[in-house]
């Protein structure tokens, strides 16, 4: 099976470039997703904290959650943003006290007899939500606010950007093509030299050696390169080779 040195080296180079670009693209995607999640969580936290401030104000006036008449307004204030699906105020056992939008789940916290964490966030395929706990003046849990971001819109934003980054990565991989071509060109020129040696040697082996070594001096790069050294060694060895094959022929004759 024949293979070409130019293709081999060019292929290896292309492969290395593709691998490097893929790794970088992957890291870019991961980095973006981390930053995006952080931004969404910060926004949800600002919403939850804003609501908590109002609820705490009511609690400190001595109002139980159930008696706060302005809760619907407080919650609805933030639902106007299109990607916020639901804002829910629950008691510490998970029972809904008031909600705006369409609450879909309990935020994944095991409620009974455990104090919910002060704040938490949950980013999964089905849920993009953040919760904060409300404490009363006694330091006891008084309720929990969860803010649900539309998981579909979140996933869509992530997917959209992922596609863009993948496209950028794919475009980046295209540089492998000129690199491959350049490398191949480089080795093609060498192939001319190697081909000349091969043909010359074949002629010697066939007993048809003429005076020259068949190597075009123009094709040889200047400087002290590896081809020059091979060619030089070949030129020096050529007479001995001719002698060896020629006398061998004599013996056979």
């Amino acid at each position: 099976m024949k293979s070409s040195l130019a293709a081999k080296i060019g292929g290896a180079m292309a492969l290395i470039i593709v691998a490097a670009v893929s790794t970088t693209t992957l890291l870019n995607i991961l980095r973006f997703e981390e930053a995006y999640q952080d931004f969404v969580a910060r926004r949800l936290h600002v919403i939850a904290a804003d609501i908590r401030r109002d609820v705490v104000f009511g609690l400190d006036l001595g109002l139980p959650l159930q008696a706060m008449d302005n809760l619907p307004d407080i919650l609805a204030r933030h639902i106007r943003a299109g990607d916020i699906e639901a804002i829910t105020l629950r008691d510490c056992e998970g029972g809904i006290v008031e909600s705006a939008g369409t609450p879909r789940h309990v935020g994944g916290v095991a409620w009974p007899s455990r104090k919910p964490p002060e704040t938490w966030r949950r980013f999964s395929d089905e849920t993009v939500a953040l919760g904060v706990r409300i404490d009363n003046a006694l330091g006891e849990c008084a309720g929990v606010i969860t803010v649900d971001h539309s998981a579909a819109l979140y996933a869509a934003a992530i997917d959209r950007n992922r596609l863009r980054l993948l496209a950028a990565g794919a475009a980046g991989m295209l540089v492998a093509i000129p690199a491959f071509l350049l490398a191949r060109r480089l080795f093609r020129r060498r192939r001319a030299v190697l081909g000349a040696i091969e043909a010359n040697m074949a002629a010697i082996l066939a007993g048809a050696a003429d005076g020259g070594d068949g190597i075009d001096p123009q094709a040889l790069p200047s400087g002290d390169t590896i081809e020059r050294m091979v060619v030089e060694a070949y030129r020096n060895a050529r007479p001995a080779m001719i002698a060896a094959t020629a006398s061998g022929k004599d013996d056979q004759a």
Partner: protein
Amino acid sequence: MILSRRALLQIGLGGALARPARAQGTRSYRILMLLWRGETPVEKGFRDYLAEQGMRAEFLIRDLDRDLSRLPGFIAEARNLKPDLVYTWGTGITLGTVGPWDAPDARVHLTDVPVVFSMVSSPWKTGIAAPPDRPPRAFVTGAVHIAPLEVQINAIRAYLPLRKLGIVYNRQEPNSVSNAEDLRALGGAMNFELLEAPLPTEGGAAPSPDAIPGAVADLARRGAQVLYIGPDNFVGAHRAALTAAGLAEGLPCFTGTELEIRDGDAMFGLVSRYDMVGRLAASKAMRILAEGRSPGEVPIETLQRFSYVVRLPVAFALKLYPPLPLLDYAEVIR
């Protein structure tokens, strides 16, 4: 280089404290309440809390009607009634019921029944509770209704800058003298100067309310920025005279107790709502009765949050508008 971006949003994982278990079962508890001036919002908060937690309780009310001499009789009665818990209102009744921490007298005081107090401003200083470095008393715990002095000074500073704090008090009341001492000491640490105007007392006689305007004017002359109303019975009784004098001198009054601002002309205060204090006391009663803890294991505490109250007409009269951040949490009385 070292980012704190992640620190901005902590993913809370801790705080998995056990909530007091809901009282279940049919057991009803008998709670003896020793009260100073009949039922107040404190007791309402106490009862509401227990009811919300699902605890059945029978309340035996004994009202001293502002007369401490009735206490021994009620204590004797308590020995026969054998209640599950005794609730006491205020420093006087509490101290009379449980005695000083280092020398309770089993013949005079209740020493083997859980006692939960409320409305005690300083249980440690009055000897109701053992000092912080000593083991706590086995049968006494309760709710403190005054914010720590430091917190009160910070509350003043949330409204206006404070360098000189004025105080008018009655030298004959030990509680007031020690309060002034505490403030003076705190001044060094918190960088303010305490200006004192003790009311003149001639020959052991009680001071005259007429002396109050002069004392306030004196403080104003010395550069006081805020008048502090402490736990002084005499000043408390004549709070109207004090706040009016303050208003005349352009001095706002700050208070740590609810009465002076709800029923007086103090401009602002950091106070515990009475029903909240009752609830806090009730949460301690819950832990003793429902969880079977010894009162010694249940810490004496004050509220986690206090109510910041601003009396807007006074603020307007003094042209001292409440700052914006304060409006987030202050209760504004119009």
